[in-house]
């Protein structure tokens, strides 16, 4: 009786479908806008908070010209993943209301709406939403829809419809062993034992040694084992349960079931093997607590009353010790240890639902974390608490940054003020027009020099001075008497003049080209200066306006930040209280269950004493 009652309970839990599908082998996303890729960088790290923030910024800055259509749908999915169901619902409803959106957008919006209802536990609402998904759809959407729809149908006990749906999806490339598992469970629930078993058996035959596959194999073997147990096929049941890894997270349940399989076949000696192994494990697990009673029960069945009495006594002691542990845990949680532990752990980077708890069970407050985390309510409470812890850190970080903004702004203002007079001077007394006129005059002059082939026009300062000296010497020589010596001097003067003139004449074109180059460079610099002055004029206006804009924006954000920090502090306190209360309630319930086990063990102990005495009396009478 004991086994059968608990067996049915465990069976119901074990024959539950898997709700979360694991994404696999997705091709890399094609990114056409950098900022969309930036959002994906956070999204692929399951950092939903920063994905949402950066997608919002990219949209506001209009930097998603190529991904604008999908951005809204993406935003809806992100906020849903981050637990903002109300906002997600609003977005998807808006997408549905927009007639411009095509069927594929509508389908995905309905699918997300169904997920929101499913997460809220509103299965009827979820079924209603998912019924709107229709027509041709992407393979991934079709599989996701079929999965959620089948889960909802199974929830309502409409297993035959779930089977049909899953069967129709089977051929898609996104079909995974998880869906196959759910199909197997749906078949068993629908009374199609043989077909269901076939589906589950095919999962157990997968050769991959990955952690994910191993876990799924264990799950399938466990479901098979309990299913065979229900149909009285104890040999098959034991065989399946013995395939579950001994060190895996499902091994306790498998050991308990394997014992039942043998006990159902009246092979108590064999049942003792897994039950004894199980009873030596951590008694915090209900399966281990169950085995503490199952071992002496089997011994009683084998008429080993003395050993059974001893075991019952040990079990009662172990269960009492467990109650003490539970009390210690409750005291530690009341003392705030659980919350402190959660706070000390990295609050993650805002990765919402997929935040993983990786707590080491070395503290009384954490001893029962595994059984606590089995509850959806507790999981949600922890996620919310950790999300709040992340938000609190985020606000603290901004609070210190924003304090520096005032200094930065002040420093920019100071720099601006120091440079303003020079800038204003340049703007008021712009030297560029005068320089440009000078440039034009030089251009004209050069043009004339070239047109008239004015070779001396390109002489440099030194050459001009030398030519002047030689002209002056020529005049002086003309006034002197015509003697051989004077003639000699005339000759020298003409020679020197000729050398300079020849040099000028020879270099005329080259000098002309060089000067043109220089004028062209001056022209380029003038244009550049013109642009700089133009920007300066623009910057002058912009900066004046921007300072006052920044000041008011910083002030507004500071006030908002202050308000949000207060709200977050209040919420984190309330959520902490709730989390503690949930944990304490659960541990209290576990204590009550142990109390019942203890009563049961004491009663069985008394019964065993009676049986022992009767047995001895019988032997004496014989």
């Amino acid at each position, binding site marked *: *009786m*004991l086994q059968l009652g608990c067996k049915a*309970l465990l069976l119901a839990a074990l024959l539950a479908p898997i709700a979360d599908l694991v994404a696999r082998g997705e091709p*890399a*996303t094609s*990114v056409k806008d*950098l900022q*969309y*890729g*930036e959002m*994906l*960088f*956070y*999204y*692929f*790290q399951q950092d939903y*908070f920063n994905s*949402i*923030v*950066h997608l*919002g*910024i990219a949209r*506001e800055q209009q930097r998603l010209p190529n991904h604008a259509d999908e951005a809204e749908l993406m935003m809806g999915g992100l*906020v849903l993943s981050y*637990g*903002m*169901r*109300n*906002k997600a619902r609003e977005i998807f409803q808006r997408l549905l209301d927009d007639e411009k959106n095509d069927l594929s957008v509508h389908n995905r919006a309905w699918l997300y709406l169904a997920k929101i209802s499913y997460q809220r536990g509103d299965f009827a609402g979820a079924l209603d939403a998912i019924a709107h998904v229709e027509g041709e759809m992407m393979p991934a959407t079709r599989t996701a829809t079929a999965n959620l729809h089948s889960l909802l149908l199974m929830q309502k006990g409409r297993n035959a419809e779930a089977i049909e749906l899953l069967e129709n999806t089977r051929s898609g490339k996104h079909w995974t062993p998880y869906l196959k598992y759910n199909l197997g469970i749906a078949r068993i629930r629908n009374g199609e034992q043989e077909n269901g078993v076939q589906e589950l058996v095919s999962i157990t035959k997968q050769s991959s040694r990955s952690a994910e596959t191993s876990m799924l194999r264990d799950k399938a073997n466990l479901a098979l084992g309990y299913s065979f147990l229900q149909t009285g096929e104890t040999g098959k049941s034991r065989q399946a349960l013995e395939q579950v890894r001994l060190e895996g997270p499902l091994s306790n349940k498998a050991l308990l079931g394997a014992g039942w399989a043998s006990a159902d076949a009246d092979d108590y000696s064999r049942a003792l093997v897994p039950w004894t192994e199980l009873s030596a494990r951590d008694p915090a697990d209900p399966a281990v607590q169950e085995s503490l009673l199952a071992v002496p029960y089997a011994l009683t069945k084998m008429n080993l009353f003395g050993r059974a009495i001893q075991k019952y006594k040990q079990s009662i002691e172990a269960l009492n010790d467990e109650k003490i542990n539970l009390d210690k845990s409750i005291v530690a949680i009341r003392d705030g240890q659980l919350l402190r532990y959660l706070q000390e752990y990295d609050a993650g980077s805002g990765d919402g639902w997929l935040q993983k708890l990786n707590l080491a069970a070395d503290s009384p407050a954490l001893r029962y974390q595994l059984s606590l985390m089995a509850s959806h309510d507790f999981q949600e409470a922890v996620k*919310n608490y950790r999300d*709040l812890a992340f*938000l609190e850190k*985020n*606000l603290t970080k*901004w609070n210190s*940054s924003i304090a520096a*903004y005032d200094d*930065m*702004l002040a420093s920019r203002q100071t720099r601006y003020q120091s440079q303003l007079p020079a800038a204003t001077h340049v703007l008021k007394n712009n030297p560029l027009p005068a320089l440009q006129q000078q440039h034009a005059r030089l251009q004209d002059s050069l043009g004339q020099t070239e047109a008239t082939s004015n070779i001396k026009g390109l002489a440099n300062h030194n050459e001009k001075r030398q030519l002047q000296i030689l002209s002056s010497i020529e005049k002086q020589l003309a006034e002197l008497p015509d003697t051989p010596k004077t003639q000699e001097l005339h000759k020298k003067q003409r020679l020197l003049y000729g050398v300079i003139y020849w040099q000028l004449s020879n270099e005329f074109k080259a000098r002309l080209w060089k000067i043109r180059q220089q004028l062209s460079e001056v022209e380029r610099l003038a244009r550049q200066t013109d642009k700089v002055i133009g*920007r300066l004029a623009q*910057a002058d206006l912009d900066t004046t306006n921007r300072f006052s804009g*920044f000041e008011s*924006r910083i002030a507004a*954000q500071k006030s*908002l*930040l202050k308000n949000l920090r207060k*709200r*977050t502090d209040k*919420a984190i306190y309330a959520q902490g209280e*709730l989390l503690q*209360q*949930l944990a304490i*309630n659960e541990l209290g*319930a576990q204590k009550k*269950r142990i109390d*019942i086990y203890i009563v*049961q063990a004491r*009663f069985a102990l008394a*019964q065993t004493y*009676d049986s022992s005495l009767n047995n001895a009396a019988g032997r004496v009478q014989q």
Partner: protein
Amino acid sequence: MEKKYYLQLQVILPAVLMLLFSTFTNADSTDTAAGLDEEIQSLKQDIVALNRSLFMLEEELLFPSNTQVAVFLSMDVGEFFALDSVQLKIDNKEVSNYLYTRREVEALHRGGVQRLYMGNLKSGEHEIVAIFTGKGPNGRDYRRGAELVINKSLGARFVELTIIDNESSEQPDFSVREWE
């Protein structure tokens, strides 16, 4: 005797089952949880909006669009190169030296684009050099550089560094390009 034992169990079992089936929330805590959940959703929405405003404010204040330059990193397949770090130099001055986590590399493989650096540059020509360090084909240490000269004018400029698989040489290629 056996029958008596089972009868006792039959009395106890329903209580056990009831305890096991029952959730550990009561009506009050469910109401509190629902109310709090609404407030947390609202807080998330407001803090997301605040972050968006503050990031934009920060960008405008620290990196005005006239001088803004942002450098992004992406991967095109990237099977021939296991990225460890990227060193970024602008005009021969190191502006970033980023070490990647496994999760970040995985996100890049899946199509994510990382904003590696954001800073200010004056108008004119600037040389951007990126040095990629990691493991190349056959697990060998690999260090390669890529460079680009950009002509910074008015308006924000975006530069993308990409690690590409060269299928013909079975080696990684590294490119730098400027987005218009």
